[in-house]
């Protein structure tokens, strides 16, 4: 599976994603400049974390207008796999590839810590290797990850089973005190209708080696590889 990791000005998880996919999972990785308009030959496009354009104005607001995003939109429409992590999730929402918005954390503070996520859906391309209900331990690192969607959009997300991850306790309860940022319905990650575009606030690429504290993030990245290998090209 050929992965393109998009680099916007101010992105910083690009190398981490490259490390996880390339060094740990041994997949070929290209870094894709934000001015690029062509994503030919790629199977997975990752929009990594960071502070694109400093997160000035709103997270992802300026990045969403870069040339590469037009290409990403077309790529997603053709069924290509797109994973937006943290800032990448915010950019996907600004680009309207995913619904809702991410507000300032309820604490008004940046939070970097390990959290637990419950896998709600194993039918997204990024969770085919997971069981529904399975609990993953993955770090977050954001100041604006407080998921918001208006009531009808939220209801639609739930009805269409597009909530992929929810913050939960260690034993899988989506309790309020397991919610690190105030997200509605404890939402940590959602997909599009087709399941090929996923946005999530936690950083799976930081959870790919036991040395760094855990490797549950591998399940998400490996799911993408497996989902892709099952899709006839």
């Amino acid at each position, binding site marked *: 599976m050929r992965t393109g990791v998009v680099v916007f000005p101010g992105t910083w998880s690009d190398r981490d994603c490259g490390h996880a996919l390339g060094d740990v999972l041994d997949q070929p990785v290209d870094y894709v400049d934000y001015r690029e308009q062509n994503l030919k030959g790629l199977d997975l496009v990752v929009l990594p974390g960071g502070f694109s354009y400093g997160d000035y*104005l*709103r997270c992802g*607001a*300026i990045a969403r*207008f870069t040339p590469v995003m037009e290409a990403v939109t077309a790529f997603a429409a053709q069924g290509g796999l797109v994973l937006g992590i943290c800032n990448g999730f915010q950019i996907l*929402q*600004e680009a309207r590839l995913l*619904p*809702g*918005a991410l*507000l*300032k*954390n*309820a*604490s*008004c503070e940046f939070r970097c810590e390990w959290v637990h996520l419950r896998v709600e859906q194993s039918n997204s391309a990024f969770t085919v290797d997971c069981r529904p209900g399975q609990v993953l331990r993955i770090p977050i690192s954001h100041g604006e990850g*407080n998921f*918001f*969607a*208006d009531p009808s959009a939220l209801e639609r997300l739930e009805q269409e089973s597009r909530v992929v991850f929810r913050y939960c306790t260690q034993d899988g309860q989506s309790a309020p005190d397991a919610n690190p940022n*105030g997200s509605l319905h404890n939402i940590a990650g959602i997909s599009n209708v087709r399941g090929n575009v996923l946005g999530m606030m936690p950083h799976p690429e930081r959870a790919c080696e036991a040395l760094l504290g855990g490797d549950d993030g591998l399940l998400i990245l490996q799911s993408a590889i497996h989902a892709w290998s099952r899709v006839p090209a």
Partner: protein
Amino acid sequence: MRKAEVFVTLKPVVNDPQGLTIRSGLHALGFDKVTDVRSGKYLLVTLDEPDAAKARQQVEEMARQLLANEVIEDYRITMLQGGGL
């Protein structure tokens, strides 16, 4: 040169954690009459556009496309005669 003020605020249905934090900060300082604080952005845009109507239209367009996110925010525009703040 024309100047436009753009105010961007969170829609009333959207929680405003920052407003809440500021309110508790004000309470802690003894301003206990404060019942609510809503926080937003203030942008002062200067354009090189002599035509007032065109300038306004352009700022509208900027707000719609970039300055505000309609999923969560409202905006208001004031064209200034003189200098702005």
